[in-house]
């Protein structure tokens, strides 16, 4: 029973980083998919996030702190859902909604919706000290959010999406040893060109990865975890009256999280994300901090 508890609480790990990651940044939302990693049939998570951007990592790598008057604040909510199609196949989706404000001016906007299909390539059917549980997944991003290329409000407070259709593929590996757990995630994606106004925007590839580490003290109902990983986006070619390539973007997510399993089908999590941790190796991204609350409901097989 204790072992089952631990597996369930580790299942929260797959949900947290995705929502927390997108919270502070302006245009991006969850890049990581909603995946059921425990022994459940269906799971639904709702996330509430409050975040602020305190600085900008310039394309040169220089960090520019923002004054209070320029500091964007974000309040976001996100609904994630996933369900099994068969023993090893599952589908999931993320529906983000965001409120962004600078000073007294704010705006609500829908973010980019993502859909994903995952396959449990490495099921844990037999005990192994080293072989992890593994998923491969494909994710599609629908540009339902307002992109920075079509923003019409001061300080781009209405920006909530990338502005491109996109697909990505990735791998998620999970392993537990007693009270400890480790997760490894890698994802590569490509967005598709789109025209806004008199210019055509041709995006490049994007890469992201993450390493998670957690512990459930005494194999109890609490889990303390951390997740770190880089996110890279290749330059976008702008073609039109003024043609140039935007600089690439390199950011890092770093999240500290506390999860509590209230019952075998309900868990709560609190997460703090701070992009200052790796700001010295970031460029062309906002540097923010956020606090998230996640409520996850699961239905057993």
């Amino acid at each position: 029973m204790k072992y089952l508890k631990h597996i369930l609480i580790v299942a929260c790990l797959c949900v947290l980083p995705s929502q927390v990651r997108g919270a502070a940044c302006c245009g991006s939302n969850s890049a990581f998919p909603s995946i059921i990693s425990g022994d459940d049939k269906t799971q639904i998570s709702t996330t509430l996030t409050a975040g602020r951007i305190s600085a900008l990592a310039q394309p040169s790598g220089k960090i520019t702190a923002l004054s209070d008057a320029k500091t964007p604040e974000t309040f976001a909510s996100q609904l994630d859902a996933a369900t099994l199609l068969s023993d090893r196949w599952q589908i999931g989706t993320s529906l983000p909604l965001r409120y962004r404000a600078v000073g007294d001016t704010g705006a609500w906007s829908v973010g980019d919706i993502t859909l994903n299909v995952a396959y449990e390539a490495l099921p844990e059917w037999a005990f192994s000290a080293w072989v992890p549980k593994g998923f491969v997944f494909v994710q599609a991003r629908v540009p339902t959010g307002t992109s920075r290329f079509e923003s019409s409000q001061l300080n781009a407070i209405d920006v909530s999406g990338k502005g491109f259709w996109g697909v990505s593929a990735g791998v998620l590996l999970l392993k537990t040893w007693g009270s400890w757990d480790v997760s490894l995630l890698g994802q590569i994606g490509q967005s598709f060109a789109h025209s806004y106004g008199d210019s055509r925007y041709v995006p490049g590839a994007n890469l992201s990865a993450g390493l998670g580490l957690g512990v459930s003290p005494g194999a109890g109902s609490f889990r303390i975890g951390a997740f770190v990983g880089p996110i890279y986006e290749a330059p976008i070619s702008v073609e039109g009256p003024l043609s140039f390539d935007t600089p690439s973007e390199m950011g890092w997510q770093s999240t500290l999280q506390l999860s509590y399993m209230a019952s075998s089908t309900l868990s709560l999590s609190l997460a703090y994300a701070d992009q200052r941790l790796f700001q010295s190796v970031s460029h062309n991204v906002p540097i923010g901090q956020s606090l998230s609350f996640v409520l996850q409901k699961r239905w057993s097989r």
Partner: protein
Amino acid sequence: MRVWVSLFLLLLVSCADHEVGARTEEDSFASEEGEVIVAGVSYTASTKIEFTKLGVCSELSWQKAPENNKEAEATLRFTDCSTSTPVDVDATFPIKKICGCDPITFDSAKEEPGVYKVNFTIDSGTWYLGVAASYEGKKETQRLELEVP
């Protein structure tokens, strides 16, 4: 176990305690030859742009320098490079932020033959201001880089 958890948390908290670097205000200046203009409140100088294909020169002078979220105003005068007499060049002014974003507002008007007035509002960061000129059937685009504090 408690020791390990404490060490783990201590490591994370100490790492997260890094301070964001202080903002440094750069002094305003104008580059006489280069394309980069670091705009600022006290910026008043002008910039010369040569269109070699067209054989014309231009001078961009600022009435209001670009500042974060404030209206900027500039005048561009096209002249013959050798005689400095006004030349009636048709021009448009594409402008984009380095992220590919558009300005908050932008407007340009031909005041008289070869003289244009541009008004725009942009926020802080790096912007590309293009000058797409047409003269005697030839076209040429030059680009200025504006660093707005």
